[in-house]
């Protein structure tokens, strides 16, 4: 379990990283962030880049700031920093909840916010959270900076809008509006494992207690995280309640295309998780929004 030979550079600045990427555009070049996904792939020789550009020395990519309704997080910010951030706790508790479901403290000490977005594992929490909250991803490449909404960033199994010469620089996450209820849950074999299935929801209620805004995202059940736009639409304008949630769960489950199947969970089981988790995140999110049929926080 030793990687194949590769060249290595560790630039100190983003500009330097971009120019290195340009210089090596014709080589098989790869960015190294926290290494929690890439290093095992290198060691098992499943990834064998010719050139590795290590972003760990670039201090300018590590920050968490609040900017006019957004949390701006540098791509090289460690998940541990997110977890410990007071700003995150206050402004976007769903981000905190999702972060705490990523691996173990040791993994979060090294693994970065940008790395999870760029890697786009189907069972990863962050891509689902990005779809759920409407995250914006900022990318620097040879052609300058681009801003890509999450809905356009994720392209399926381990695939994103990033070109090999692009650096993901910043992840911008909207702060939680007061009055929005949220939930983020998953089912894994062990605490810290990639989820066999997971779901997130945000809801808003109107003055009569009806659902005025609903978002639901699933992960771990298919080739990539996904939003349940159809299910969401059917819920808007409805009075929340157990029967409605069950209905939504059933539709989430039926609508699932090609659920994953592996040694831990069959496609059928994942279909079931899509249902169960959709119900549970709706219950919890509505509960947090103070609505009917909701469930107390932590009662699951």
């Amino acid at each position, binding site marked *: *379990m030793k990687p194949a030979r590769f060249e290595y550079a560790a630039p100190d600045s983003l500009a330097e990283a971009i120019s290195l990427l340009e210089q090596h555009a014709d080589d098989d070049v790869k960015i190294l962030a926290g290494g929690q996904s890439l290093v095992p792939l290198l060691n*098992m020789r499943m990834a064998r880049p010719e050139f590795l550009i290590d972003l760990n020395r670039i201090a300018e990519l590590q920050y968490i700031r609040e900017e006019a309704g957004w949390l701006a997080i540098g791509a090289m910010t460690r998940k541990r920093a997110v977890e410990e951030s007071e700003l995150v706790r206050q402004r976007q508790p769903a981000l905190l909840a999702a972060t705490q479901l990523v691996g173990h403290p040791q993994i979060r000490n090294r693994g970065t916010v940008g790395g999870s977005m760029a890697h786009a594992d189907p069972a990863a929490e962050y891509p689902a959270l990005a779809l759920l909250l409407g995250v914006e991803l900022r990318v620097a490449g040879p052609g300058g900076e681009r801003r890509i909404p999450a809905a356009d960033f994720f392209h399926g199994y381990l695939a994103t809008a990033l070109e090999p010469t692009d650096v993901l620089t910043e992840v911008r996450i909207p702060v939680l509006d007061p009055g929005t209820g949220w939930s983020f849950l998953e089912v894994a074999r062990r605490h810290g494992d990639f989820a066999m299935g997971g779901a997130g929801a945000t809801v808003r209620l109107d003055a009569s207690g009806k659902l005025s805004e609903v978002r639901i995202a699933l992960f771990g059940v298919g080739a990539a995280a996904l939003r349940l736009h159809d299910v969401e639409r059917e819920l808007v304008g409805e009075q929340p309640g157990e029967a409605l949630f069950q209905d939504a769960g059933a539709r989430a489950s039926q609508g699932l295309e090609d659920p994953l199947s592996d040694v831990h969970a069959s496609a059928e089981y994942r279909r079931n998780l899509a249902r169960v988790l959709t119900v549970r995140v709706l219950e919890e999110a509505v509960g947090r929004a103070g609505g009917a049929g909701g469930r107390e926080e932590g009662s699951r």
Partner: protein
Amino acid sequence: MSVEIPKTLEDFPNSSPRFVGRGVDRVEDPHLVTGRTEFIDNVVLPGMLHAAILRSPVAHARITGIDVSEAEKLPGVFAIVTGEDAKRWSFPPPTAPEEWGTHCMATDKVRYVGEPVAAVAAVDRYVAEDAIELIAVDYEPLEVVADPAKAMEPGSPLVIEEKGTNVMLQRVFNWGEVDEAFRDADRVFTEKFRWNRLGANPLETFGVIAQWDPVAGSLTLRASVQSATHFGLGRAAVFGLPSNKVRVIGHPHGGSFGGKGGTRGTDVTALLTRKAGGRPVKWIEDRAEYLTGGGSQSWDRHYEVSLAVKDDGRVTGLDVKLLDDMGATGECFGAINTVKPLAAFTGPYTIPVARYDLTIVATNKLPQSPYRGMGPPPHFCALEQMMDIAARDLEIDPAEMRRKNFIPKDAFPYTIASGNEYDSGDYEAVLDGALELSDYPELRERQARARAEGRCVGIGVVSAIEPGVFDWNAYAIVGVQGIGVPEGATVSIDILGKISIRVGFALEGQGQYTLATQLVADYFNVGFEDITVVPLDTFSAPPAFGPGGSRLGVALTGAVLGACEKLRAKLVRVAAGLFQMDPEQVDLVDGNLVAKGVPGVEMSMPQVVGTMLARSDLLPPDIDPRPEATYVWTAAGRTEADEEGRAKSYLTAAQAVHVVMVEVDPETGLVEILEYCVVDDCGTRLNPATVEGQTEGSIAQGIGAALLEEYVYDDQGQILTSSYMDYLLPTINEVPATKKGIVVTPSPFTPLGAKGCGEGAMHTTPAAILSAINDALVPLGARATEVPASPNRLWNLIRGAKERTAGE
């Protein structure tokens, strides 16, 4: 010279022993926690090369060509070996059953994914791994047999063609009038169980440095090996060398649990050092190699079990049919796992008659290795489910069901139907302790409340036996010949009164050096700081087997105390000579040699030792002047197996009761352990902290077995769990804090009354958790009969039960 080994601490020549029986700090730990223990991967020898092994990517194929020419050209490569070298320089290894082995590298065909095909020794591991990528192997696919039932069918592809069959062993053992018992039973219960392949996962994988001496024609092996002597004898057989030409230096290792066999990798590495002209070659098994091609896999079982029961709950007969998928060969002695259950076949119960219909089959999978417990844990998991099934049908509480069938405490020593003799026990006291500690009635009330809320909560109450102090005779029926397993120790005192204990096994983690130190410190009334434990290699150590089969605590106690007794006798004779008295008039008391009844006539140990070393003219004429003694302990009274496999085999029988409460989420099948309570009796606890550590770790492994761990192969023999992403070990998050209680019934057969306890809770935990799950599932009408009881499996069962009820 007959040696009287102390039976209790009162027999020690010490008026106030301070260490034995106390949870003293371990002498091993300062090195371990400061990173100073010399593990094999830390060792660097001059000129040493590094090996990488090319392994088969397919389960069954003929090798039609191997081209190593590109690899040979890579700078830094020193030697390449293939099956041709294996044929030239080695033989297939000893196996169980006999003659089910193949060479350490595929010679004609590959038989499982992960089988070594070629290997490279190079300047470093990176270059070695680059080189194996350059070796081109042509495989001509053969039909794969990955299902043991299919492997038995006529016309099945053969794993080892020369054998003419895939059935390694098929035998029915009848102990008593089994058919009669089933005929006379009020009720008969039958169920099938599936225990999926799992195994040992020590923190450190296997590692070895092999060095061939081309002049002497001898081999030196430094290895993280569990039993150096046994390993060395096996390697001598493989290489056709006299046994005194294979020297094994055991290194401290980071756990084993049975997974440190390492024979294939060692044999490949030995071929490499020979091909490299005697340069030392290091091979460190990496995790993927360990999981797919190492000592990682055990117990791949299909059971059908029947129980004959009377209406009052008495179990009158047990019938167990087992089909075990051994994998490709018998080289790792995996078959032993299937016959060890004879040592405790009927568990803690008085079941008078039993039958064992045993079939062991070869398939295109990794050969099975030993694993903690060595076979009985799945057996008990099935037996305990049967006890619950019967209890539920008879409407008897599961705890009372056990109580009704326990061997009573006045019946020991007790010979079970399958022939072994249990030394002692008080099973009811253990059960009562567990029911009290867990507050069982309150647990049942909690369960009732939870059920009323629609939650699936269940309680398991199970009991099992841990056979301790293994003996080869237990394995005769799978072709392992012999009786008795020696363990030796040398105790030596220097001129300043400092003591060395020389042993023949490497540090493995169970605190054995601490135990030896406790014993000697109390015997000679010295402090821990006065004692060093010295592990020696196979050319210089006293005869030894080392850890395995829950034996070393007992065996080492016998060896060390025997050596102490012999040394005392020697010191007494020398002192008596100097006092001009008879030896009977002199005694060792609190570390001094004193003349009985003559105040003031005494010598310190260093004085006596100094005299021995310097003044041979003052010694009794026939005495060996070295201030040391060696004793080799073996268990007494072991018998040869009879025609039905019955023998007095394992010397001790520890017993435990576990009470567990779990909750099953019926929508996801997830299991949460709400309460875990253990009471056990392993006789005298020589170091209670060590026993507790063994229990704790074994519970973790039992939880892994019950809920998580499984090596999955597809029908093409491809392994789907080749990393820790997919082979799931329990972590601290999955292992609950446990309540523990103890009962002490000393063994009448062992030094100080201790029983084997190193395998421990693994015998009981999987059964306890599965029982609790099944108790939780009762209202849903589902029954789990397969471990690991994964969420997906439980969900399938619950859904199936729902569909059945809906259909009614």
